[in-house]
């Protein structure tokens, strides 16, 4: 049994005639110890999909209209408040983009980590354990750092504290939502290295959400590419980067300038990312797609397994 199994998840914001579909039929599994990347641009639904795993999107305004999220075989969408509290931070932990905004500014970081311990491993809610966790995430001189307030730390240090807090409960799945986007590249390299190292030492699964395809190559076993609320390609990471199949994935990879890539013109994707509520009919990428055919705008193509382990939502994926 997979650790996490999202099946045909559909989520709206709002109800009735005003409902806007943010997540439209997303299916994704993560095995124990696996790293999966969810890639997409802003507004594609990647963050709400990830937040849904511990049902962290408030309902209302959100409204789950279909599908299930099985965490260790149990449907998160049917859980009671008490059950949810035990999985949040217990089985699934989160690390968010802005460490400065996620930490409470008026409490010392040591106490904030201890709070997580008190909830999930009360017998271990000690300074020693907090120091051990801070050491685990590579914070120098943790004995004195536990008495720091968040503002006394740099962005990279704060993100390490967030990771320590997420690890306090020994989760099976760590969801990292753009954990390095707010950080500088040299600090980003430190944090990615840390996640890589922790994964190997602790054997937890990671769901990493990013818009940076470079990170995918470094971190992921498998990748799901999302566009306008749907997964358009799902594949082992190295194969996807080497030979992308969906026109959107191809265009995305080609539009990023590469180091020492020469001064050729970038192949930009025309148009803009469609906004939620304004998704085009049929294939949602069709208006921006270089190989779109008239029939692309009539029906949404299905996500099909075209090669072993490689799923694509485009019937014309063979077209070069």
């Amino acid at each position, binding site marked *: 049994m997979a650790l996490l199994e999202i099946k045909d998840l559909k989520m709206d914001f709002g109800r009735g005639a005003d409902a806007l579909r943010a997540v439209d039929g997303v299916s994704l599994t993560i095995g124990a110890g696996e790293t999966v990347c969810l890639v997409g*641009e*802003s507004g594609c639904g990647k963050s709400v999909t990830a937040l849904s795993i511990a049902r962290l999107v408030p309902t209302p305004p959100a409204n789950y209209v279909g599908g299930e999220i099985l965490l260790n075989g149990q449907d998160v969408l049917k859980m009671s408040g008490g059950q949810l509290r035990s999985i949040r931070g217990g089985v699934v932990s989160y690390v968010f983009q802005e460490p400065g905004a996620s930490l409470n500014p008026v409490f010392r970081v040591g106490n904030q980590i201890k709070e997580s311990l008190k909830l999930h491993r009360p017998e271990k809610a000690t300074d020693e354990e907090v120091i051990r966790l801070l050491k685990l995430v590579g914070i120098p001189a943790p004995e004195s750092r536990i008495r720091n307030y968040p503002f006394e730390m*740099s962005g*990279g*240090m704060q993100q390490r504290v967030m990771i320590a807090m997420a690890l306090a409960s020994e989760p099976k799945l760590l969801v990292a939502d753009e954990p390095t986007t707010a950080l*500088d*590249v*040299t*600090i*980003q*390299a*430190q944090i*990615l*290295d840390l996640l890589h190292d922790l994964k190997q030492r602790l054997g937890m699964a990671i769901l990493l959400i990013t*818009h*940076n*395809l*470079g*990170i*995918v*190559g*470094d971190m992921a076993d498998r990748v799901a590419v999302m566009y306008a609320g749907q997964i358009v390609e799902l594949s082992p*990471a*190295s194969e996807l*980067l*080497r030979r992308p199949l969906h026109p959107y994935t191809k*265009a*995305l*990879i080609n*539009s*990023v*300038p*590469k*180091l*020492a*890539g020469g*001064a050729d*013109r*970038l*192949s*930009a*994707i*025309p148009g*803009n*990312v469609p*906004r939620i509520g304004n998704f085009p009919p049929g294939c949602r990428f069709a208006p*921006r797609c270089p190989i779109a055919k008239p029939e692309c705008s009539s029906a949404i193509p299905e996500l099909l397994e075209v090669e072993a382990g490689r799923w694509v939502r485009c019937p014309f994926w063979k077209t070069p």
Partner: protein
Amino acid sequence: MSLLEVKNLKVHFPVKHGMFSRVHEFVKAVDDVSFAIQAGETLGLVGESGCGKTTLGRAIVRLVEPTAGSVLLNGEDITRMGGSELRARRRKFQMIFQDPYGSLNPRMTVEQIVGEALDIHKLTDSPSARLKRILELLKDVGLDPVYAQRYPHEFSGGQRQRIGIARALAVEPELIICDEPVSALDVSVQAQIINLLQDLQQQRGIAYLFIAHDLAVVEHISRRVMVMYLGKIVETAEAKAIIREPQHPYTQALISAIPEVDPESKRQRILLPGDVPSPIHPPPGCPFHPRCPIAEERCKTEVPVFREVKAAHWAACHLAGTRIEAKR
């Protein structure tokens, strides 16, 4: 003569510790920076947050006052100009900002935003000529002229950045300071804006100072690249040379830290320990030495001179050219 020449520019901000305390300390945001930009060329400026790259860009256009040094535009010192004198020179240089949401007045229509620049410099003599020029500019940046009466909130991030570019182009500048013009945009839209900037440069011969933290973007668009660390330029070279043969250890680490899309890449990552130090108390000697994997004893005391290490390749490092061994 260079289009723009920056000589020993310094921008120091005073730090106050209380309402009545006296100023004892300074943030040395830009510390003794010199460089030149030729007409029609793109000079890239990379560095991490807090290194002073934005302040440098703003000091050139006099949005912040330089503490010392001079900025020469076509050989004319604009550092100590004021009022109408400076305003007249501002036609020659414009700025594009990072945040396309924050840099456009939400209460003005696109026509008003672009037209304001024309009005200030009195570039059109009749309302019909003004409107014609605005519509032309919108077309030049790839916006449909029918949008002229709309407000900024009706546009996407990429479209807003196009409006900002149209505003900068309105006065036909010779130099545009681009401060992180694509970092707030979606990946698929970034390439559109980079291509647009390159097209405009070819058509009009505008020079750019292109400020960004993404080395891959900077390398793509620039002819030459400067790397900045803690208020100082640590390396300058042709874009290709800086990527292929980085001389400064910081540049080497910066290049190796960029995650790569290519799964075949065998590039090893150099992990720098620690964070960027505070610019209030920069380390003595070489400012990079506490994080530098190859630092020696003299790096702790002697400030390295910015010197020409190879032909047209400058670096501020005692050990310039030494390759760092990547671990992992």
